[in-house]
């Protein structure tokens, strides 16, 4: 019997190694797997490259990981926010590397990794700073920039429900990057509000099929009272 559920957050983040590339789901705090991030901080892996839409909010979650000095580089689209003070300070001090990627290219590059494409010509960013030094091409009268896949060793994501095969469904706008990050990491680790028996999730509504998920951990349904 295959059972991808693990019984502790510690077990969930086991094996994340120094220098790993780790995708972290979420758009701001919606969909951010805060408990998994806390477990990663406790686990101790350092020199991480983080892929996330943002660069942390306030002092919790991703911001706390940054504050613990575990992150060497962040690949994101929107670091600067009203409450991104942790990142801002590290960045200004030259203590974190930033690769700024337009949000749609971030999504498309993650998808390209998950789908096994070698590279994509995307229109986004053509003629801008963010395409400097990149190969471009005119196709049918429109300009495109060549962008490469973003793969990860691990993905930490948050879903609403999961089962022992790793099937996942999400909740509202917390879905955001979860389903695509799950496809692009060697080991995808999902925190869910509830682990349900196999067969409980309707095969028509499963958003992330279990093939993309290696570990599932339940964190209780504190965040999903409305589900």
């Amino acid at each position, binding site marked *: 019997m295959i059972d991808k559920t693990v019984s502790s957050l510690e077990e969930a983040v086991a094996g994340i190694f120094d220098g790993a590339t780790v995708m972290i789901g979420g758009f701001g705090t919606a969909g951010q797997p805060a408990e998994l991030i806390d477990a990663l901080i406790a686990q101790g892996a350092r020199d991480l490259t983080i892929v996330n839409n943002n660069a942390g909010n306030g002092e919790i979650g991703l911001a706390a990981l940054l504050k613990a000095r575990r992150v060497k580089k962040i690949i994101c*689209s929107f670091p*600067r926010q009203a409450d991104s003070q942790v990142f801002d300070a590290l960045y200004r001090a030259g203590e974190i590397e930033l690769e*700024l990627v*337009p*949000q*749609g290219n971030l999504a*498309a590059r993650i998808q390209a990794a998950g789908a096994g494409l070698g590279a994509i010509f995307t229109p986004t*960013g053509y003629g801008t*700073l963010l395409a400097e030094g990149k190969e471009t091409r005119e196709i049918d009268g429109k300009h495109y920039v060549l962008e490469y896949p973003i793969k990860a060793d691990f993905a930490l994501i948050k879903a609403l429900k999961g089962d022992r095969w790793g099937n996942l469904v999400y909740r509202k706008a917390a879905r955001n*990057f979860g389903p695509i990050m799950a496809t692009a990491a060697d080991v995808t680790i999902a925190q869910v509000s509830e682990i349900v028996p196999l067969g409980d999730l309707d095969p028509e509504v499963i958003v992330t099929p279990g093939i993309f998920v290696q570990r599932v951990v339940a964190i209780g349904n504190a965040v999903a009272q409305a589900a």
Partner: protein
Amino acid sequence: MNKLTRDQMAERVARDIPEGSYVNLGIGLPTKVANYLPKEREIFLHSENGLLGMGEAPEPGEEDPELINAGKEPVTLLEGGSFFHHGDSFAMMRGGHLDICVLGAFQVSATGDLANWHTGAPGAIPAVGGAMDLAVGAKQVFVMMDLLTKTGESKLVDACSYPLTGVGCVDRIYTDVAVIDVTPDGLVVRELVEGNSFDELQRIVPVPLKLAPLAAAA
């Protein structure tokens, strides 16, 4: 010159959004447009974080931290709305499925180049989000901005001095003093705020303008 308030600008943009349009309203000033879309007109608001059919702000106390817009403010979803992941959301944007996006701007050039994400100032931490995807992807890109900076310089320029968001992507500019189209023949003033004259406008904009009001502008 007579100037529209920010709310009047939002109301002006809202008037030009036809029923049935798929629309993305950028963070900041453009978000205000939603307040002026007539209730009887069905317009589909898209938010890049995976919502289509976005509704109004929730009642106080009804906020859901997992139901937010691209500006990370609480929103609601209309009946008929849907949730999807970031890949699908940006396919909608980049794939030309949005009819209109409305963006703020630092500068717009005479050829429709847009600068709205980065001042280029030393020490500034850049953040781009979905602006570049909207700029290249939406069928029509509307910009909404005051014509002048706080220090009195025209934000409508010959060539942008700020880093670009997109090249030749802007279709129409709603300013506080006039509505101006970017056309193959250059910038064309479609509408002047009541009391403003074309000559007055041309004096403060360092790019040649033409005057060609739209018959059905309202």
